[in-house]
């Protein structure tokens, strides 16, 4: 009996996982090829510099710095504001001496993340 319950739950879990991997997470965001390249490079940089230790995207990450999911479209922040921090660091954020092309890629990535955040924006 116990084993049967376990197996039913386990099969449900595997099935649900498969559905989440496909149907549950479709994206219809269209970007030009060159922009995708930048987004993907930005994402790699975001991981390489471990930005996640201080910043959250969709709630995942550390809390020393601000949440960045909607920083791009935020009326108080936006692209110029973001670039200023990426260029110079802040009171707690270190200056990573990023090249301009790296800053471009990071901004492209964060702009793309912002575009996916439909559930998030309420303003």
């Amino acid at each position, binding site marked *: 009996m*116990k*084993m049967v*319950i*376990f197996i039913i*739950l386990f099969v*449900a*879990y595997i099935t*649900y*996982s498969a559905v*989440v*991997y496909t*149907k*549950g*997470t*479709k*994206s219809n965001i269209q970007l030009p090829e060159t922009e*995708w390249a930048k987004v*993907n490079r930005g*994402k790699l940089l*975001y*991981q*390489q*510099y*471990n*930005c*996640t*230790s*201080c910043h*959250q*995207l*969709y*709630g*995942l*990450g*550390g*809390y*020393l*710095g*601000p*949440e960045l*999911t909607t920083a791009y479209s935020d*009326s*108080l922040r936006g692209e110029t504001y973001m670039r200023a921090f990426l260029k110079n660091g*802040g*009171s*707690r954020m*270190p200056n990573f001496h990023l090249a301009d092309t790296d800053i471009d890629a990071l901004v492209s990535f964060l702009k*793309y*993340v912002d575009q*996916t*955040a*439909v*559930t*998030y924006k*309420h303003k």
Partner: protein
Amino acid sequence: MSNNGSHIISHQNNKAAKAFLLLALSYLLLGLVFGLLGALQYIFPEFLKANLSFQKTRPLHVYLVITWIFTAAQAGIYYYLPTIAGRPLYWQKGVWLHFAMQSVISVVVVSEFFAGSFGGREYLEFPPVMGLFILLSWVPFAINFFATLKPKYKTAPVYIWMWSTGILFFFITLSESYLWLFDFFRNNMIRDITVQWKALGTMVGSWNMLVYGTGIYLMEQLSGDKKAAYSKLSFFFYFLSLTNLMFNWGHHTYIVPAAPWVRMVAYIISMTELLIFGNIILQYRKSVTTARKNYHLLPHRLLTFADIWVFITLILALIMSVPAWNYFTHGTHVTVAHSMGATIGINTMLLMASVFFILKKENALSFQQYRKWISSGIYITNGSLLIFWLSLLASAVVEIKGSISNEIFFYVMQKSLPYLRVFAYSGAFLFIGLGILIITSYKIAASKTQVKQKTLKRTFSFSPEQTVGVKDH
């Protein structure tokens, strides 16, 4: 409790299990050092900013304390397995292989963090290849677990189910959290973040299974009540937790951009936690009586504190699960409060109970000598944890107010600074409290030979089993 045969059996494995225990405690000690440095960086922005900023202190802290949790659970399981199974560990050398692999992995991971080489994923901030090695290091553990126990699930107690589930799901979720290495997952942010939430939520559930299973086993040993771990009620709650582990991935999935039904499922499942909550209230009287009766037993006292933290953490979790509130609590230090209550208040208290249970068995006399220290360690830890936890909530209230009035991060941070100071200073006391527990554990473990001689002189009239059973005063 154990006959002579199993006593000899467990002694053969003690060395390896104890080595694991000491390794686990070292992770905790080091993890706390970096946690404290990180907390200080909240209140002193320039502190170590150039060379050891939060970019490094956080992953060091997170990696080391998570590793403490599962290593301490594994150490306990290695120690308890032969007694439960009634036979020696299947693969004694495998324990040492596991020990060697894990130690080398940790040295490499810590060095990579210092060197600034990251994988940059939540919880798994080390370069991805290390994830593979961690997965491999669990293989000897899994082999030993299943081959020593040869579990018969039909009649097995609930903690065997829980440990088995924990091991199975650790393998599944660690693999799942590396799906991002494939383009299909990496190149779609919606998919990547959803799968990450799902995998990590379940991964936390998997080590909770290991830790809570240990708690239930200890309860059985301390109370002598052999029926509870086989009861229908225990299994009902096991399956409820299993359902939560599979379908409720952490407490703020509502903002994740996946399809709406994904969030709906997470919400409905998370509300089943109300049942767990209700059961705690129902069992309240009974558990208070047992807690009172056994309070003088230090491992039992730790279990009691863990119970209190289960209660507090569950209330907070339920509050955070209401979507309308979650919108505000998410991204604030409420989340940190929640995870500190769960990992320190519940997990670390349960695991410390296991540590002291083992040390007392191994070295009853030396354990007696340090009774006062352990007791004060327990009180300092729990007292400072409460202040620590409240200060995080207070700073979260400031953050929520700030987000409602759309203030800029810098000003919100400035306003919550007084609470963050309390957070950092109570963190220092937390460090002292847990530090006392860790150092006394080292001392009890090290005093082995010296005490053995004393044991001969003083306790010649009773056997080791009886020494263990003697109530401490």
